[in-house]
């Protein structure tokens, strides 16, 4: 059978492979190469060695945005997962209206980052106006504004994943724990949470990478103001590319560093939490 299928490579694989080459493989390789070049378009690239990488750290905005993004990611990972888990626990207790609540909490996920950014821009600036402030008054306001926005958007998504996980826990496990005299807290600590490790892995992974890669919301809510202080990594790379002529190479070098950080986080996190999962 394998032989019969094999001849059909051009029909089955070629379209995807071609598009994948144009959309990913070629840009990725060119991207690595360009990070060692000075250029304004691809055609005029001139190899200059590691100069671009050296410039990344002399440019203070990158280090600031790296720190800002890290803090933001830590705060949002903890808050989103905690809230999503608590809400999921409550909404699996067979209370009235559960389905309506789930539907409502999930809804903001379907709205794009740009639109979300402007919705919250209106609301948060309206609230801050009471104290005569705006979101771009200082980077702290932008930070917490973005945290609130992301909570609103993603708690519902993670909640859905946790609910699916909780519903998959076999009822007799909790029953056995209860008969053995475990109280609510012990059931949670020794049965529910260990059984939920796969969901926790997925949600931590999603919130971590979402936090690190956040762009649209950042652009629409504060656009990095005041003076690049509320700029996250993805936006910092974007403005280096398109807002500073002559710095395209540095922008690409930043992008490579960004890729390495995101990749490293994804891999370590997966290895770490997978080792904690229990076998059923």
């Amino acid at each position, binding site marked *: *059978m*394998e032989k*019969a*299928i094999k001849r*059909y490579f051009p*029909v*089955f*694989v070629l*379209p*995807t492979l071609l598009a*994948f080459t*144009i*959309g*990913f*493989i070629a840009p*990725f390789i*060119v*991207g690595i190469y360009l990070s060692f070049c000075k250029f304004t378009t*691809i055609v005029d690239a001139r190899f200059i060695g590691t100069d671009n990488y050296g410039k990344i750290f002399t440019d203070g905005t990158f280090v600031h945005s790296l720190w800002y993004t890290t803090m933001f990611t830590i705060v949002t990972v903890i808050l989103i997962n905690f809230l999503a888990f608590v809400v999921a626990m*409550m909404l699996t*207790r*067979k*209370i*009235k*209206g559960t389905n309506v*609540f*789930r*539907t*409502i909490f*999930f*809804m903001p996920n*379907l*709205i*794009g980052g*740009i639109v979300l950014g*402007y*919705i919250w821009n*209106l*609301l948060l600036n*309206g609230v801050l*106006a009471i104290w005569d402030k705006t979101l771009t008054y200082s980077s702290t306001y932008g930070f917490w504004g973005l945290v609130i926005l992301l909570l*609103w958007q993603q708690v519902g*998504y993670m909640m*859905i994943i946790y609910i*699916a996980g909780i519903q998959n826990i076999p009822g007799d496990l909790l029953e056995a724990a209860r008969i053995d005299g475990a109280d609510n807290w012990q059931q949670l600590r020794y049965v529910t949470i260990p059984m939920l490790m796969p969901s926790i892995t*997925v949600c931590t*992974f*999603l919130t971590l*990478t979402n936090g690190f890669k956040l*762009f*649209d919301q950042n652009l629409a809510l504060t656009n990095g103001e005041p003076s690049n202080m509320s700029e996250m990594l*993805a936006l910092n*790379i*974007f403005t280096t590319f398109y807002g500073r002529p002559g710095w*395209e190479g540095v922008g690409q070098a930043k*992008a490579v560093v*960004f*890729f390495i950080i995101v*990749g490293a986080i*994804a891999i370590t996190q997966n290895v770490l939490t997978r080792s904690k999962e229990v076998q059923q």
Partner: protein
Amino acid sequence: MMSEKKNQFNNTLTIIFSVLSVLYVYPIFLVLLNSFKKKAYISRQPFSIPQGKTFVGIENYINGIEKTGLIQAAMVSAFVTVCSVLVIILCTSMCAWYIIRVKNKITSTIYYLCLFSMIVPFQMVMFPLSKIANMLHLSNPVGLIVLYLGFGAGLSVFMFTGFVKSIPLEIEEAAMIDGCTPIQTFFGIVMPIMRPTCITVAILQTMWIWNDYLLPYLTLDLRKWKTIPIAVQYLKGGYGSVDMGAMMGVLVLSIIPIIIFYAFCQRYIIEGVVAGAVKG
């Protein structure tokens, strides 16, 4: 006694969640409210109800549509999203089936490249991608479909291969012994079995492509075409100060299709997210 206490607790939860749900919808309601308000009053009094001299009817909507070309942008968005999702499902499911059924170095390389592409952030490839797209004359809505197939292939191929692995070989073998070609076997037998995965992939890709801002912004010829997120952002970028009235109108109009889509496909969306998360 015990169950009465539990009932009371559950009723309290219902009340708490009802209040939370109202708060959750409030940001969208606020935008709707302000879309009927004269633009000078939006930033100054965002929380007041439009009436008398602050009420402008649908002026903001007309204004917003005219300034951004929203109708045309919506058509481009719809065209690109629908076509890309159909093309992605067709091409990547065929590709996934082939690389699981035919085992050799090439297919396993493609598989691992797809996995790898999932952790690469868009910023890494955005500059080379936009230049390559330009060189290949892909800076139009049809070209965008190719780019989405290319950049979205990783996740889709990964999800389809996960499913193909679980299909027993015997069914396909029987079909091919009976004289089916691989193409007939795929569309007659494999594709119908993969329906649930198709729906999951379709949901995840629709949510991404419909709301995506950066890829079309960097590759499309913006003088001729815009998508909805670009049209929204254009209000901010194109003019010195933002016309808040037009902005509110455009925001409401861009949320309406999402709410309609959600109302009709809610079950599939939530199932799709769970299925996608478990495999991701």
